């Protein structure tokens, strides 16, 4: 298999030393440069000055929490957020002429960056069976085609409804309601591919799928772990919280296979010391861990804590907490003592002394927070790793107290809220019962398809219609060629989108582009101007309201499109007032308030400045688990290994990238410019493999299914990755991730720890 994404010629690759700090003045310059390239100074100003402010736009860039109203900066955004919001607010437009000029197959040969740069979609388009061009279609007709295809299916389960984390609570609620009234639980979402492992591990051990910390906890923690995450590029506003924590005396341990700039030092451009000074050192201790070694690291740390307790009984573990609030401690202790230090060394690449120094940091700290992201969740053993992190937190009672807790750092801005609204293929009966009571129809009970299983079902012809609420499913999903084959085998694919992406070009017999309003734009419906709501990574629910005029008068909101589609498809089935929902989103929120726990008085509470915070049971002394207590777990030891001559590859994003969309070919912090077709390998491994910087290689993944997956013609960059490992950009290397290579339990694609070999290109 070859990398299926066609490309324009890239610039000449140039490599400079990796940066040792993140943000600062260059971040401001780059953000403004990109913003002004996309749109006017006035629109840039409107966007940026209302972004993450009370009554303004929630930045779609990430799900990091905002400071409380009254404590926000006038400029409460980061470089990537500014780029992202103005990428959406671009003045460039795609019209019918564009699609007359460019065939679908031609567009399929374009890069992600080129497609994104063409501007905003402005009118509904259809690609009819046998045609290679999109053509304009009236909204009524477009929705008629889609509704007709849905109603002609033999079973509702032949349709899949995908949701991206950009969707608002209101749109997500309406989509799941429509899908279930239609008769299916096939509701895959981007969560399936990013933090599904967190949800499963935390639900099992703590009784909640959400993180337990707020910004105040981070600010007042004494020790913070940043594990498998790159805040400088993927959640830059987290750096402000870490800076405040450092100012309050916190220490930070960063654990990552790459020494990212944002883990080292942060120059806050809103503070004098960030502009002219040295900024704030972030990590006090950096553990240069091998990909996938985190499970072994936390198992080793937990053993060291048990041994410290043995040496000084009663001084290390929080016995009161363990006795009163946890289960499974004795079994855990027995299992934990079987740690083998040679295995730990092999799995982590760290020495015992390095880990003992971290233990000492832990013993000095009364309040500990552990943050993690996809460097953990996307491993095959992501769920056990997070369970082991929970073990670590439980041992010293670092849950449910101020300044402590578990912090899965989520990416897309409403990825958490969409789940809360019922976008999940396995919703519990309590939620379905509430839907039934409220709307008078019988929701389907069998579990639906997640992202990976949707691809399999499409490929096997069991799913014939694919509707996406935002996102770029084809590029976000693993095993690119398999995913594309699956999409192409559908009878109809439809995308509710703001901008063009590869998912519009790899499509079913019939394909629809349903252009929609962006976050930045005014949303005026029959009952007046509307706002939507979102839930951030720290369970705070608040409003988002755009101020710009829509990119086209023909755009409909996500809610409007879904309500109209539901009316056409369901034709009176179920007592659901779709027209009222479209006219006044407050009526949707009234229903959410009656169905989703924690949302009582939704309309009243969400319009308060800053919105409201959903309660977290862990912080109220409740562990809603199988045992009724926080659960220690015994996790089998895992030593990720690559055969001789192979490396463990992790896919990652560049700094100038948002999800599947690269804004430029540069990765400023890592010092890589002009090309994304690079593979980062450390110099010792290069010597061992007889390769050198600048060599062109194919990345070939070694999979259990025996299929050779190849990402062709990548330039080698000598980079301080952990020994034995490599890194390359997502989504270009998704082609290397087998569809069946998933995290145990969560079924999340395992995009980290891929065993690859590097073969000279053209060999």
């Amino acid at each position: 298999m070859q990398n299926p994404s066609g490309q324009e010629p890239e610039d000449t690759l140039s490599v400079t030393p990796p940066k040792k700090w993140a943000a600062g003045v260059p971040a401001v310059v780059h953000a403004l440069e990109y913003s002004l390239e996309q749109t006017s100074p006035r629109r840039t100003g409107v966007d940026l000055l209302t972004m993450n402010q009370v009554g303004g736009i929630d930045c779609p860039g990430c799900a990091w929490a905002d400071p409380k109203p009254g404590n926000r900066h006038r400029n409460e955004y980061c470089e990537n957020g500014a780029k992202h919001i103005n990428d959406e607010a671009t003045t460039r437009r795609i019209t019918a002429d564009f699609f007359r000029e460019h065939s679908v197959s031609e567009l399929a040969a374009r890069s992600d960056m080129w497609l994104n740069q063409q501007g905003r979609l402005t009118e509904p388009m259809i690609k009819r069976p046998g045609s290679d061009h999109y053509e304009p279609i009236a909204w009524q007709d477009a929705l008629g085609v889609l509704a007709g295809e849905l109603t002609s299916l033999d079973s509702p389960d032949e349709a899949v409804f995908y949701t991206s984390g950009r969707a608002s609570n209101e749109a997500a609620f309406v989509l799941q309601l429509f899908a279930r009234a239609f008769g299916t639980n096939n509701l895959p979402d981007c969560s399936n591919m990013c933090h599904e492992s967190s949800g499963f591990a935390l639900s099992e051990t703590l009784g909640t799928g959400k993180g337990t910390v707020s910004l105040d906890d981070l600010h007042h923690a004494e020790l913070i772990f940043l594990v498998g995450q790159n805040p400088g590029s993927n959640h830059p506003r987290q750096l402000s919280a870490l800076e405040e924590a450092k100012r309050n005396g916190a220490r930070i341990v960063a654990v990552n296979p790459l020494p990212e700039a944002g883990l080292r030092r942060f120059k806050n451009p809103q503070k004098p010391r960030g502009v002219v000074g040295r900024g704030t050192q972030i990590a006090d201790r950096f553990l240069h861990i091998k990909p996938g070694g985190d499970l072994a690291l936390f198992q080793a740390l937990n053993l060291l804590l048990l041994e410290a307790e043995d040496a000084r009984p009663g001084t290390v573990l929080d016995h009161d907490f363990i006795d009163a609030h946890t289960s499974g401690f004795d079994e855990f202790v027995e299992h934990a003592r079987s740690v083998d230090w040679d295995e730990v060394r092999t799995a982590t690449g760290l020495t015992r002394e390095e880990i003992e120094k971290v233990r000492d940091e832990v013993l000095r700290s009364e309040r500990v927070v552990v943050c993690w992201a996809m460097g953990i969740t996307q491993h095959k053993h992501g769920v056990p790793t997070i369970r082991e992190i929970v073990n670590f937190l439980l041992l010293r009672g670092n849950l449910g107290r101020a300044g402590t807790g578990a912090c899965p750092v989520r990416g897309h801005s409403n990825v958490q809220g969409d789940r809360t609204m019922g976008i999940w293929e396995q919703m519990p009966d309590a939620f379905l019962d509430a839907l039934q009571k409220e709307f008078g129809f019988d929701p389907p009970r069998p579990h639906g398809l997640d992202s990976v299983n949707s691809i399999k079902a499409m490929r096997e012809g069991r799913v014939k219609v694919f509707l996406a609420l935002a996102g770029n499913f084809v590029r976000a999903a693993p095993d690119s060629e398999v995913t594309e084959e699956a999409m192409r085998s559908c009878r109809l694919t439809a995308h509710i989108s703001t901008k063009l992406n590869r998912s519009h070009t790899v499509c079913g017999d019939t394909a629809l582009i349903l252009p929609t309003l962006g976050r930045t734009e005014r949303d005026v419906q029959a009952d007046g101007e509307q706002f939507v709501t979102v839930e951030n990574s720290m369970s705070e629910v608040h409003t988002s309201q755009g101020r710009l005029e829509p990119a086209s008068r023909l755009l409909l909101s996500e809610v409007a499109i879904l309500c109209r589609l539901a009316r056409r498809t369901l034709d009176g089935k179920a007592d659901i007032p779709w027209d009222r929902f479209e006219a006044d989103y407050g009526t949707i929120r009234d229903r959410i308030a009656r169905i989703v726990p924690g949302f009582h008085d939704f309309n009243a509470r969400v319009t308060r400045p800053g919105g409201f915070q959903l309660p977290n049971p862990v912080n109220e002394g409740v562990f809603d688990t199988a045992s009724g207590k926080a659960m220690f777990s015994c996790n089998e030891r895992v030593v990720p290994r690559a055969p001789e001559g192979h490396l463990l590859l992790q896919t990652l994003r560049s700094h100038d990238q948002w999800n599947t969309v690269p804004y430029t070919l540069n990765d400023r912090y890592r010092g890589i410019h002009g090309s994304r077709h690079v593979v980062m390998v450390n110099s010792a491994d290069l010597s061992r493999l007889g390769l050198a910087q600048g060599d062109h290689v194919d990345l070939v993944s070694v999979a259990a299914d025996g299929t050779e997956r190849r990402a062709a013609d990548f330039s080698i960059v000598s980079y301080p990755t952990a020994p034995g490992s490599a890194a390359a950009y997502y989504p270009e290397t998704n082609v290397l991730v087998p569809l069946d290579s998933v995290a145990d339990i969560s079924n999340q694609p395992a995009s980290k720890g891929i065993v690859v070999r590097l073969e000279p290109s053209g060999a």
Partner: protein
Amino acid sequence: MAPAHDSRPHVEETVEVAVPVRTAYNQWTQFKTFPRFSTVVHDVEQVRPTVTVWTLGYGPMRHRFAVEIVEQDPDTCLIWRGLDQHPSHQGEVQFRPTRSGGTAVTVRIRLEPRGVAKLLLGSSKGAQVVARPVRRELLSFKDYIEGVGQEGGAWRGTIRNGRVQHDHPEPPRSRVARWPVG
């Protein structure tokens, strides 16, 4: 009360309020209402049962700090500590019934000043600088609760070692989504 060997400045003030202990205690747990009677508390944000963020103000000056409640027993006491390190403090409020059916409310605050603040507050006279406003605030609380006669709400939970003890008849689990978040 601060132990005899504890050299850190501390203040202790008591007022008697003419309402039952339960009423006084319940009203005290409604932290967000403090600005209604206080002259220095401008805003209180309840992050969760154990964590509040207070904004105090003197004239144009504002000071915002987070507080963790580490122990709380209904109708008996609350013990808290400041989460910020500079300056830090610990405090306690006790509620005791009086013979007349009222409540003796005692506030103790132990300061851990640094730098210049340590010089200013390190003496017994310095501690009086803090004691006066504490007493003033207690008297304001007295005026308020005696004036309105009954509490405006209550939180009757128990906190031990900074953790809410789950002993409510109706657990909060019914108020939150239980499904995993990916």
